[in-house]
């Protein structure tokens, strides 16, 4: 090679980037296992294996070398994000369909790593949400509220055989966002709904602790300089402001901003999903617009829409707008149109 540079920054690779993301996810995963039972390990493992299998299949079909692309870690990140977004203890084929859409459709039909327009995990999730809505509302109940929490062996049984010793009602429940939506449709006031045991100090019982750990992992990512502040701040900030304004106007029908921030997929999206560099806006101003749009839509869909949590859809909608946003938010290039000082 005659081209320059002849030297590159040592210890810098796509694999390392992905590895750091996985590390940052660990606190959230541990919290999830602690507060919702060990079922998460089963779905994480299952999604990872499925992801690697689909990835290998796609690479083979497309004639790409397996080793560099299987070991780059991007598939595992997608698998973990999907597993963390989905209810645990769902039948295995649900994960399979999700990963199929995530890896084959959202990623490889678009050219594989680095070229997907949509976040693969969110495509998988959205497909499941519109296709199998019943399964997607059977969330594991927090350990402290459940009459029974399946252990690891039982979780395997539930995922692969589809039946356990006890009825699903014992260990699944609706998420706080679900409860809020259905009961508000029934005419209840927000204050009353949120006094129930499913709601914790600020968000949902159990959920709020997992979310806190996601926040911790997100700060780790910021510390690694893998993400910039723009997307999390704009996203969470817009959610807080929008929810705050709505609550101020009509407190009986709108939950408080803190609840919005700490429930559903908001925190995971803020640091791990919206920040996926491939499908996110890449310019500083663009990131603010992109994440702000997503934040606004999350609150709108949660408060007025047909789905309890709009995060997956809003991520996709924001992804959709990225090429347009990027095209119109190009930063000024050195030497272009800046007032020359001192002249």
């Amino acid at each position, binding site marked *: *090679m*005659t*081209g*320059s*540079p*002849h*030297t*590159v*920054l040592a210890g*810098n*690779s*796509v694999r*390392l*980037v992905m590895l750091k993301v996985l590390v940052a996810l660990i606190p959230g995963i541990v919290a999830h296992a602690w507060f919702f039972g060990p079922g998460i390990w089963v779905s994480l493992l299952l999604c990872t294996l499925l992801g690697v299998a689909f990835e290998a299949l796609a690479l083979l079909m497309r004639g790409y070398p397996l080793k*560099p692309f299987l070991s*780059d870690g*991007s598939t595992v990140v997608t698998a973990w994000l999907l597993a963390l977004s989905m209810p645990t203890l769902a039948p295995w084929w649900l994960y399979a369909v999700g990963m199929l859409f995530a890896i084959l459709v959202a990623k490889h039909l678009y*050219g*594989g*790593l*680095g*070229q997907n327009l949509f976040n693969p995990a969110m495509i998988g999730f959205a497909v499941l949400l519109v296709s199998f809505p019943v399964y997607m509302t059977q969330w594991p109940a927090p350990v402290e509220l459940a009459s029974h929490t399946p252990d690891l062996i039982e979780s395997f049984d539930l995922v692969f055989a589809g039946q356990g010793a006890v009825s699903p009602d014992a260990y699944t429940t609706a998420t706080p966002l679900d409860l809020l939506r259905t009961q508000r449709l029934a005419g209840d006031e927000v204050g009353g709904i949120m006094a129930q045991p499913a709601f914790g100090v600020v968000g949902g019982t159990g959920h709020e602790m997992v979310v806190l750990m996601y926040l911790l992992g997100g700060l780790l990512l910021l510390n690694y300089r*893998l993400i*910039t502040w723009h997307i999390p701040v704009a996203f969470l900030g817009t959610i807080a402001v929008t929810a705050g304004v709505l609550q101020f106007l009509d407190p009986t029908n709108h939950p408080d901003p803190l609840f919005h921030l700490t429930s559903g997929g908001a925190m995971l999206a803020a640091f791990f999903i919206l920040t996926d*560099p*491939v499908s*996110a806006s*890449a*310019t500083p101003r663009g990131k603010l617009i992109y994440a702000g749009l997503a934040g606004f839509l999350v609150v709108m869909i949660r408060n007025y829409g047909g789905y309890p949590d709009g995060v997956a859809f809003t991520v996709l909608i924001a992804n959709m707008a990225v090429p347009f946003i*990027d095209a119109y938010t*190009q*930063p*000024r*290039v*050195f*030497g*272009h149109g*800046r007032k*020359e*000082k*001192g*002249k």
Partner: protein
Amino acid sequence: MRKLHAFNGGVHPEGHKGESTGRPIETMPLLPRYVVPLRQHIGEPARPVVKPGDRVLRGQLIGQPEGYVSVGVHAPTSGRVLAVEPRPVPHPSGLADLCVVIDSDGEDRTVETAPLDWRAMDPSALRNRLREMGLAGLGGAVFPSFIKLNPGARRHIPILILNGAECEPWITCDDLLMRERAADILAGAEIMRHMLGTEEVLVGIEDNKPEAIAAMTAAAGGRGVEVVAIASLYPGGGGKQITYTLTGRVVPAGGLSTDVGVQVFNVGTAYALLRAIRDGEPLVSRIVTVTGHVVRPGNFETRLGTPVADLLRAAGGELPDATGQIIGGPMMGFGLMDEAAPITKSVNCVIVKNAALFPAAPAPMPCIRCGACARACPAELQPFELYWYARTRDFGKTQTYHLFDCIECGCCSYVCPSHIPLVEYYRFAKSEIWSREHEKQAADQARERHEFRAFRLEREKQEKAEKLAKKASERLEGGAVAAEDPEAARKKALLQAAIAKAQKAKEAVRPKNVDNLPPDKQREIDAIEARRAQAGQAEQAAETEAKR
């Protein structure tokens, strides 16, 4: 304390300066042979004014500047011209270029030189002298200095910057020059100041060169020159970057630093300018850093035209397991293809690689748009977008993302986690766009000429018709009717004769007695013919090569 301005991005590659700063500048011994390329500067190559067999003296003009953007080329020593022919030159393409090959006579006699009285000389005459003396920027871009020293009719250039940043890793030639010849550099700057009508002279030096800063500060005392230590951040020595760092003035895109009243020269250029004017000596040598995997890394005062192989020998030779050389620095330099290629005005450094210092680049992965390149880009571009479109040859799009503001510093490739050779994509896109523009110009020229021809033919036809009409009317009057135009008939006959003659000439060279040969004889003849044809082709190729 001067207020400094920080440009966007930049990277901190390992410096590796210490390897080659241990010893003072050494002067290369006289070599038996020099190969002096005629294209050592930006612009038109010099036209050779010597032929094989000519005797030359050191400093004698052997290449005359051609066109405006061009400077002279001079013999590095006295001796005899062996050849004027294409030879390997230090260029990323590895192609050969026209060189004057000089066999040294060992006497190193010089042409008569006389100092120039620059204060008394007319600035334009002075610039012409510098043009003839081959002065070009020694920082690497080798732009003819006389053009940069022309302030223009109305332009005022209040600030002159001497660039001693030397931000590229490994290179130390400016460092050593500043340590050892600080006073000369500043004396050169004095002349520049005079020519440009500049008020302020700033010397920018990165703070990883404390000795150079000390030497320059000491020499600057009482000259009205300010030596400024700037943070070590690659590419802080880029012209636009150092201008911004020291003055806060932003050179407009596509413009020159003079647009904001600043002119930037490399310290080596200032030194060469002093030599040219004080000693009357044309540019025939420069300081070159030899470093990396060699026995005795260091800096060498090297005559232009010295083959790289000889320079490496002067540095004690390469250590075992060397894996090639880089011309220039590791961030912007290029791999050398042939050690026979000579040192030119643009070569500031030769780095010998080995697998430990310069490991092979990891295999590239797809871009994940992480934006690390954008954060590192001193031109504040979006390198990943440029890459995305250069990759698919969408050159229009690359231009909307300001491809031509890229300074090819290599920061983006350096930080890329996917290890994509980004700069190579930009260079590819740039040269494609240039070549297309060139083609477009050629097409426009052809269109114009074609249209003019059509117009001419039309006019001629009209004139002819008029003439015929006139003739016809005359004939009618005279009553004489010629069966045929005798002139045309004569022409035709002549042409026929010529064709017959040419055909005959062709026949003549055709071999005789080739009918009814036995097959083995026929094969032999065929083989000979084939060889002859090949030789002819080779000759032809060499001829066209030489013409260019």
